[in-house]
């Protein structure tokens, strides 16, 4: 909501009519004072119009000004509340500040300068709060738009990238001299890298946006699908994929995010193989420990990660090696997805031996989606 430009409105509740006349006289130049003599009337006025400041007398016949201000606090949080009192009542002051969140006090008989300055400060406070709220809304909107922009830009970038891949493929098929062939393979590698980064960006934004949907999960099937999907990936043809699961209880979870995690861990295992060895393998195991927890492992005998780098691999844009194409966003996305589903991940790895990621995922069997 935009800060109001018109005369600020003050609701004034006091059971003595001459006080209302008095306050109105002091404030009439800058403020519109709407007076009423009972709490009951005040509720009606509050429901009808919007006030920036509410001034209530402490003694309102049978009613109590502090109780009234406390009572309307949740329903009308934005108006600034001021309590008016004839003498300093310590108990009322404590209750007013702690409970009713009163901004300021005014004392009777009303002193013109004091009233003017108190109301002015109260109104400034109101304006600052409103402005803050307004800016917060604006910021949230800008953030949302930025997200959407990155998301749709990555989407739109994919088509031309795939198109370049197609042209390279045609050129390679139709035979070109060796040197040009080499250039084309370099272009191909860069385009693949850009495309993978793009796809990752998209899944990052999806992960942050997408609501959690709880579905039945078959870990074996997910792993098999992803292995199948990547069997044509460069270098994947010489890797032995092994799946070893004993999921015998039905299992519920956030399929979308679980797939993100699988996808990234499995592509990494494919990418970071040691080219020189013959028996390359990736082993996926799954053990559902009863109905509420699954322990999954993704193990390869690839290049491994040294201890120093193990601590940093989940950081955004961190790359532990120069050796492979990548932007360093994959494991960051894994971490984000893991946080969202309340899972735990740890890593066991030795350089030139291999890497094992161990994942513990809680089941959402009993939680409403």
């Amino acid at each position, binding site marked *: 909501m935009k800060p109001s430009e018109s005369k600020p409105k003050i609701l004034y509740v006091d059971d003595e009519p001459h006080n209302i006349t008095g306050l109105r006289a002091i404030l009439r130049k800058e403020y519109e004072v709407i007076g009423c003599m009972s709490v009951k009337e005040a509720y009606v006025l509050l429901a009808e119009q919007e006030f920036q400041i509410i001034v209530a007398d402490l003694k309102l016949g049978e009613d109590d000004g502090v109780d009234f201000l406390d009572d309307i606090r949740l329903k009308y949080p934005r108006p600034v509340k001021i309590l008016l009192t004839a003498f300093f009542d310590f108990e009322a002051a404590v209750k007013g500040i702690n409970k009713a969140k009163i901004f300021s006090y005014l004392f009777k008989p009303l002193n013109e300068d004091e009233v003017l300055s108190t109301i002015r400060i109260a109104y400034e406070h109101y304006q600052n709060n409103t402005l803050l709220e307004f800016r917060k809304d604006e910021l949230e909107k800008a953030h949302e738009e930025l997200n959407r922009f990155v998301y749709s830009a*990555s*989407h739109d970038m*994919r*088509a031309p*990238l*795939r*198109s370049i*891949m*197609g*042209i390279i*493929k*045609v050129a390679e*098929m*139709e035979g070109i001299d060796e040197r040009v062939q080499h250039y084309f393979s370099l272009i191909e590698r860069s385009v693949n890298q850009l495309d993978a980064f*793009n*796809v990752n960006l*998209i899944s990052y934004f999806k992960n942050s946006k997408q609501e959690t949907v709880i579905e039945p999960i078959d870990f074996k099937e997910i792993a098999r699908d992803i292995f199948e999907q990547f069997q*044509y990936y460069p270098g994947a043809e010489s890797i032995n994929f092994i799946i070893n699961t004993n999921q015998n209880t039905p299992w519920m979870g956030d399929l979308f995010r679980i797939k993100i995690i699988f996808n990234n861990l499995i592509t990494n295992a494919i990418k970071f193989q040691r080219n020189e060895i013959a028996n390359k393998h990736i082993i996926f195991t799954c053990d559902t420990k009863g109905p509420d927890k699954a322990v999954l492992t993704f193990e390869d005998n690839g290049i491994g990660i040294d201890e120093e780098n193990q601590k940093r691999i989940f950081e955004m844009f961190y790359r532990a090696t120069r050796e492979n194409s990548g932007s360093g966003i994959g494991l960051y996305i894994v971490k984000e997805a893991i946080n969202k589903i309340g899972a735990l991940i740890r890593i066991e790895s030795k350089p030139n031996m291999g890497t094992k990621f161990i994942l513990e995922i809680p089941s959402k069997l009993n939680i409403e989606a």
Partner: protein
Amino acid sequence: MKFLLIDDSEIELYVTSRLLDNAGLSSSVQTFLEAKDALSHLHTIKMEDHNLPDVILLDIHMPTMSGFDFLDNYIQSLGEVLSERISIIILSSTADQKDFEKAARYEVVKGVFDKPLDTIRLKSLLEEINS
């Protein structure tokens, strides 16, 4: 085998035609930049068996008539005559897995492919369909 390609990008049409040709998969390739033109072409030739394509490669995201619109129209107006005769295969660079999932739910869709076309995979899929 006769192919009919529908894609709003000329580059894509060219690339896919060349890939099919180089892989020795196609005896003829007909291309359409607009799905609705392809649809009316199919209407014209629906009774001429020798002119019908064996395979339609269909893009998803296209202006005016999208791949999904094409499928809906095709099934409604031509499905009875052609669904057994022609294999429709989706060829798209969509970054949204849901597009592929949605496309795969159409009975007339025999396969979904990411661009650029993997002709080896296509070949084995077509062998499977025709066996």
